[in-house]
Structure formats: C-alpha cells, structure tokens
C-alpha cells in the first residue's frame, strides 16, 4: 500500500517537472518524456513510447496532457493516469492563471491596450502558420482539398457551428472510405507523414 503511494507520488512529481518544458509545445515534451520515463525511471520501453504518442494524437485533447495520462496508466493503472494528468496540468495551470490575472488587471491601461493592438496581428500570423504547417499531411488529394475549401466556406458564410463540422467530418470520412472500398477504389488513409500525427496537437 505504502509502496503504491510512493510510486504515484513519483509519477506526479515526474510529470510536474516535465510540464513547464511544454513551452515549446508538444514537440519539446517528446524527448523529455523519453529521457525521464525510459532512460531514468525505466517505467516504459522505447517501443511503448511510440504507442503512447500515437494514441495521444488520435484521441481528442492536447498531446502533452494525453501522453502524460497514457504513460501514467501504463505505469500504474487508473490511479497512475490521474497522478500523471494532475501533475502535468498544475504547473501550466498556475503559470497561465498568473498571466491571466496580469492581463485582466492591466488590460485597460493605455500602454497595454496599444501593445495588444500590435499583438493581435501576431496572433493571426501564429494561427495562419499553424494551418500552413498542417496542410502537407492533411491536404493530400482532391477530396481533402475540396473538404478544406468547403469547410472554410461553410464556416465563413453559413456560420455552421465548428462542433457540428468536426462531428460531421469524422462520419463523412468513415462513410466515404467505406463506399469507395465497396466500389473497389482505394483511399490514401495511411498517413505518410505518420510523425506529423502526433505533432498535429503539438504546440497546443
């Protein structure tokens, strides 16, 4: 019993220490998790880690948090998953909360207001760059390019709710690939840039 708590505490502390490193996004966390979990603690083997990042990119949510949850689960079951998740969230939660408090306190200051006037286009650039980085692995054939254009069109001009679009597109994908398979056509569902899959949620 005491040993179990010690392991859970160890998992918590390990991810607590890793969390602030996510400053570079999900990317930055991969080598750090590898060093801490595989090399130092020897909780998982190298090949298990590939599974961890693959799963973390396929389920909803941030890759950084998902990887922690799944690693924790592999090491110590459901309690391990909870310990790792809480551990990875607390540091970034506190940092962003502090920044949020700063922002709310000073946002009416004219200097801060001017700063945000300049920051807003930088945020737009950041988002545009995120879209650009993903286009290689996402827009791979005529169908996906059409889907991309259609989605922007629906969002901009018909105010379709983004949630609806996400759910709808997942179902469309499943139906489309199956119909094509019945017609004897192949769909390139294998992601060539597999690595990008875990990076899709990176920096996020």
């Amino acid at each position: 019993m005491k040993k179990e708590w010690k392991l859970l505490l160890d998992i918590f502390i390990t991810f607590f220490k890793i969390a602030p490193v996510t400053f570079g996004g999900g990317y930055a966390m991969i080598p750090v998790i590898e060093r801490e979990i595989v090399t130092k603690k020897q909780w998982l083997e190298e090949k298990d880690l590939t599974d961890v990042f693959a799963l973390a990119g396929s389920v909803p949510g941030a890759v950084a948090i998902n990887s922690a949850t799944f690693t924790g689960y592999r090491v110590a079951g459901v309690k391990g998953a909870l310990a790792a998740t809480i551990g990875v969230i607390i540091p970034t939660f506190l940092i962003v909360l502090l920044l949020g408090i700063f922002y709310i306190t000073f946002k009416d200051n004219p200097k801060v207001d001017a700063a945000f006037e300049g920051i807003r286009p930088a945020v737009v650039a950041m988002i545009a760059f995120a879209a650009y980085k993903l286009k290689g692995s996402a827009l791979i054939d005529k169908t996906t390019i059409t889907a991309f254009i259609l989605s922007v069109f629906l969002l901009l001009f018909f105010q379709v709710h983004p949630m609806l679009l996400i759910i709808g597109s997942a179902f469309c994908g499943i139906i489309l690939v199956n119909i094509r398979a019945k017609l004897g056509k192949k769909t390139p569902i294998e992601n060539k840039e597999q690595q990008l899959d875990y990076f899709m949620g990176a920096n996020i």
Partner: protein
Amino acid sequence: MTLWLLFKTFFLTGLLSFGGGYAIIPVIEAEVVKYGWMTTRQFTEIIAVASMSPGPIATNSAIVVGYETAGIAGAVVSAVAMVLPSLAIILIVAAFFSKVNDNRTVKSAFYMLRPIVVGLIAYAAIKFALSSHMIGSLSLHSLSLIIIFFVSLIALSKLKAHPAFVILFAGLAGIALYS
C-alpha cells in the same frame, strides 16, 4: 450557473478537440461569444495570453476564459472540464484496445478530420484578422497591422522564432506605434 455553463462548454470542447488546440479555437470563440462572455476581439487577446505560457493553447485559453468569467473557481472548472473527456477516452481505449492507430475506422475518420482541422484553423485566422481590423478596410492603420502580421509570419516560419517571443516583440511594436 456560470460555472455549470463553463463546465458544459469546455467539456464539449475537450471532447471534440481533435487535431489539437488551434483547430479548437473557433469552437471556443463561438461559445464565448454566444454566452456574451467576451467579444471576438477580446478573445484574440486571450489567445495571446494563452500562447505566452507553457502548456496546451486550448486548455490555457479555457483557463483564462474561466478566470475572466468566474474567478479562480471558473479557471479550475474550465481546466477540469477540458481534460476530463480525454482522460476518460484514454482510459477506455487503453483498457479495450491495444492499438487504436491501426484501426481502419479511426483512420477513415481522420482522413476527413485532417482537412477540416486545417479549415477550422484557417477560419480562425480570417475571423481574427477581421475582428482586429487588419482586413476589411484599407487605412494607414490597417496597413501597419498587416506589416506586423507579415513580419511575425516570417519570424515564425523562416527564423523559427518561438510564439512567445513573437508576441513580445509585436507588443513592443504596438506600444511604439499606437500609444
């Protein structure tokens, strides 16, 4: 009541955040504007704050929205609501499937999800560009905003600058130009 709305909103958001944070920005934006918690313009500032701290941008923005709407309790509720769906799904998947990624249905869903994720991110960029008066009308002011946009884009793509630095420098440019 607000806490419950925050929980509901961010639970659904967490459940649907495939493809990571930038794609989920328009989802959060639609909800916060719907409930009148803030305007699109204010939300752009939240994104800036969220991307300056470590951690996932979607969860970070949820935390700041929660704090601005309902204080510390709001921040905690929003963070928990965002993470809970992923936690539950990972536990279920880990218990029943050994390899999700090899699943054909999952792969088929992602075939269409990926372009929609890019679409959502592109839409977020256009929407924020409109709300910050970057595009829509031409003036000396909008021209200066467009210049900041392109300089930031080059810094991010060519110089591989970290978003936090880009935001910092854009903020300094803002103080120099607009105060």
